[in-house]
């Protein structure tokens, strides 16, 4: 008996598969939406963990949250330097003469989206009490918030409310709804950055019904009053659709800070007088892998990408100034901007091997040691190798995007000067035999490891024995954060994304009382710095305050507390059919409501 007959069935299966495959393939195009639908596929290089505003601690979560919820304020779409604009608030606040009391009126008729969390499934009006509840949530331990630090110790009675058991029925004297549309915030001390904090995703307004209804799953069931509502989310993408009940507010170029000199040619003029959001459907793809994101952009599966550093060579015709290659300039929209933060390596000054020491002589020797390391760190090589030479190196802790940045001052701090560095070591009695072992920490990944190897090479050039520069690797960022919060790492490499465009946000990184586990991971402790910080804390932006910030920056540099820093230049590409000015800094996710699709272009395409 012959048993080869099954092969005949196989032939049939193969033939059927081939036919289906031919039907399936063809010119690549994503599944089309309904005719006339304005749809846009954005991409992010990471995924949000949670869409609960109280836990929107990452750039990715914040990007989505500000589109699903309302905040009292937002950043103007086109204004540079960045400026605040009312969002849910009716206008800018009334501030008492002592700067402690803020009265904010919110818009009438703004409604939460329809959701089963509400009685009858119909969304109700957003009230001042919702805002009060949303801020209180940050002080309820059950929320596991990431945003409480913004208001901790700043609003009268809020910390006490938490200490007394976080009972929502109990009022907070400094956080009240005077009526359905009026909020009163009373501060414990002046805090001019308050309005910036109210433009963060953390400050988004949530309805209590939804938090109670969904419990822990509220993280994935956003119920807000923002321009979009969530249709679906998973680890790969979020799909949002226009909130049909979003308030009608005509777009005004002048109000948004349009600058014809630098922003014409993007098609933004066509938005004038129309009400955002302009999209019917907004899809955000989460693509951490650079190669996958690049291929997806080239294939048309996504319409926007942050250009991976590995493609800079291909995309750019010139680095200084940054100019795209002709083929990319013709095919795509192109943008370049500095990130809103910086990359640094802090010394852990609580470590007596390199930091503060009970013996004054040794402490002075340690300072010389740190300064030698700073001078032996070659920022130009770091920039060339890891940032394609288009990052901006700056001295200290006031990054270029901050209004208080000083373009001229402190350049000496970032000048590579090996001779002086070696001299410093010699003058203070450091020899290869008595140099301490440097422990350089980082979360395990290839780029961080490469940066460590470069650092070790710099130290070898300085005369540090190779076996005295050691890596401390951690499997996850959480483990790394735990280690430096416990002061276990000598050299802490990290980055800081500014939360708002005010150097106070980076100055607090060196404020003594914020020492680990707080944000002062270098455990810097300088009485004069702390005095100036407190002095500047209540000041509105002014020349005097800028002068104080710069003085504080100088103190950090003269103590050689950090090897800092570089602000990366980010490159963006997007489809020509889109009308937009993407931003990843402070406007962030707010820009998505203003994205439009050139209908004519699509039809022609």
């Amino acid at each position: 008996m012959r048993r080869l007959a099954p092969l005949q069935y196989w032939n049939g299966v193969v033939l059927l598969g081939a036919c289906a495959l031919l039907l399936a393939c063809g010119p690549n195009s994503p599944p089309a939406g309904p005719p006339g639908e304005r749809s846009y596929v954005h991409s992010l290089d990471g995924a949000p963990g949670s869409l609960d505003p109280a836990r929107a601690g990452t750039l990715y979560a914040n990007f989505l949250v500000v589109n699903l919820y309302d905040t009292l304020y937002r950043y103007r779409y086109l204004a540079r330097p960045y400026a605040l604009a009312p969002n849910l608030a009716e206008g800018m606040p009334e501030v008492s003469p002592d700067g402690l009391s803020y009265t904010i009126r919110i818009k009438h008729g703004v409604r939460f989206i329809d959701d089963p969390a509400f009685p009858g499934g119909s969304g109700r009006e957003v009230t001042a009490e919702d805002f009060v509840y949303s801020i209180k949530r940050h002080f309820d331990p059950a929320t596991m918030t990431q945003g409480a630090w913004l208001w901790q110790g700043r609003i009268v009675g809020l910390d006490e409310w938490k200490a007394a058991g976080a009972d929502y029925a109990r009022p907070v004297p400094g956080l009240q709804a005077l009526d359905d549309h009026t909020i009163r915030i009373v501060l414990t001390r002046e805090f001019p950055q308050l309005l910036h904090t109210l433009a963060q995703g953390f400050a988004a307004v949530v309805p209590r019904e939804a938090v109670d209804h969904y419990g822990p799953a509220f993280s994935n069931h956003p119920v807000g009053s923002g321009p979009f509502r969530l249709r679906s989310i998973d680890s790969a993408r979020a799909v949002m659709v226009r909130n049909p009940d979003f308030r009608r507010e005509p777009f005004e170029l002048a109000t948004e800070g349009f600058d014809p000199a630098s922003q014409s040619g993007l098609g933004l003029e066509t938005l004038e007088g129309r009400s955002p959001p302009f999209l019917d459907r907004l899809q955000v793809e989460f693509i951490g892998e650079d190669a996958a994101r690049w291929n997806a952009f080239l294939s048309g599966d996504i319409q926007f990408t942050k250009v991976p550093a590995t493609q800079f060579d291909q995309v750019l015709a010139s680095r200084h100034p940054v100019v795209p290659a002709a083929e990319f300039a013709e095919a795509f929209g192109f943008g370049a901007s500095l990130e809103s933060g910086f990359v640094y390596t802090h010394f852990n000054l609580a470590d007596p091997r390199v930091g503060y020491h009970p013996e004054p002589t040794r402490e002075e020797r340690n300072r010389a040691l740190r300064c030698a390391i700073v001078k032996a760190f070659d920022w130009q090589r770091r920039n060339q190798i890891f940032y394609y030479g288009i990052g901006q190196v700056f001295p200290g802790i006031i990054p270029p995007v901050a209004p208080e940045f000083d373009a001229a001052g402190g350049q000496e701090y970032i000048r590579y000067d090996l001779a002086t560095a070696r001299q410093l070591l010699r003058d203070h009695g450091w020899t290869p035999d008595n140099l301490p072992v440097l422990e350089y920490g980082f979360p395990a990944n290839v780029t961080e490891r490469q940066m460590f190897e470069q650092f070790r090479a710099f130290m070898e050039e300085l005369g540090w024995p190779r076996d005295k520069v050691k890596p401390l690797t951690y499997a996850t960022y959480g483990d790394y954060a735990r280690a430096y919060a416990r002061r276990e790492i000598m050299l802490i490499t990290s980055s800081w994304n500014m939360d708002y465009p005010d150097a106070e946000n980076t100055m607090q990184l060196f404020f003594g009382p914020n020492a680990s586990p707080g944000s002062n991971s270098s455990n810097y402790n300088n009485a004069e710095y702390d005095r100036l910080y407190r002095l500047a804390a209540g000041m509105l932006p002014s020349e005097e305050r800028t002068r104080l910030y710069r003085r504080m920056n100088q103190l950090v540099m003269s103590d050689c507390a950090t090897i800092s820093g570089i602000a990366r230049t980010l490159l963006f590409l997007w489809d020509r059919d889109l009308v937009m000015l993407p931003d990843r800094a402070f406007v962030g996710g707010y820009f998505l409501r203003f994205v439009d699709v050139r209908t004519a272009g699509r039809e022609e395409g």
Partner: protein
Amino acid sequence: MKVPGYIMRKLLAGIPLILGVTFVSFLLMVYFGPDKTYELLGKNPTTGQIEEVRRQLGYDRPFLQRYVAYLHELATLDLGHSESSGEPVTGLIARTLPISLALVLPGFVLGNALGVLLGLLAAWWRGGWLDRLVMGASVIGMSVSFLVIIILLQWLLCTPWGVNWFPARGWAVSGFTSYLWYVTVPSLALILVTLGYNTRFYRAVLAEELGRDHVRTAESFGATPGRVLFGHVLRNALIPILTRLMFSIPLIVISGSLLLESYFGIPGIGKATFEAITSGDQTVLKAVVGLTAVMFVLLQLLADICYRLADPRVAAL
């Protein structure tokens, strides 16, 4: 022995395995795994806030108490909520597992079927040019990184720099045609990366079988090559083939699809597991580890039943 009794005995024997796996993995997770606390904290935490989060996560409870609670969760399938997204873990698994299965199934089946076929051909003509060609190609296939294969295939098949026939990412599957549209490139990648390993393994098994007495006897009786290969060699080599197939499934589903899911934007369980590992989401990790252990036990049982069907000598034992 009756089959139901056999199944029951095997299932009972699997319980210590599940307990052992869950205990060891839980121990590693608690004492050496990632700490979610610092992922959940804000930018300027106080010691008190750190303690609050640890309490909320249950990190302050004694190990044994946590382990018993874990077993209870597994037994009742009440797996809690993801510490990252808040999504119920049972819902997460129910949503992602079918996607991963649908993603890897074509590549897994075709990769193994082709592997058996090429292994048969190489074994039949062992030492000849075809054998050397197949084995040489297998070594090359084994040497190329999965990542390189994925990126290259994406570039060739999914971008205008190549033929641009398929999507570089996505999983908007609404029917068989769209399924093929999305699954073709990932499947090709999976086939290419597994074919070398499969072919070498199957060739070794089949070549050994070809040297046995019963094959020589069949050839002496004048059986055709097809009859010899499919009726005698392949059938008698089924035990190691089944073993390999069965025990590949959990690895393929849980970890094998990770790169495919990440690079093609497919929301399967591999990616969810990877994210749980990197972010320290112990609720998800515990569930995946526990269910993987259960899956191994069930597949072991299934493999045993298949052995009995494939080889009467096993059934007689």
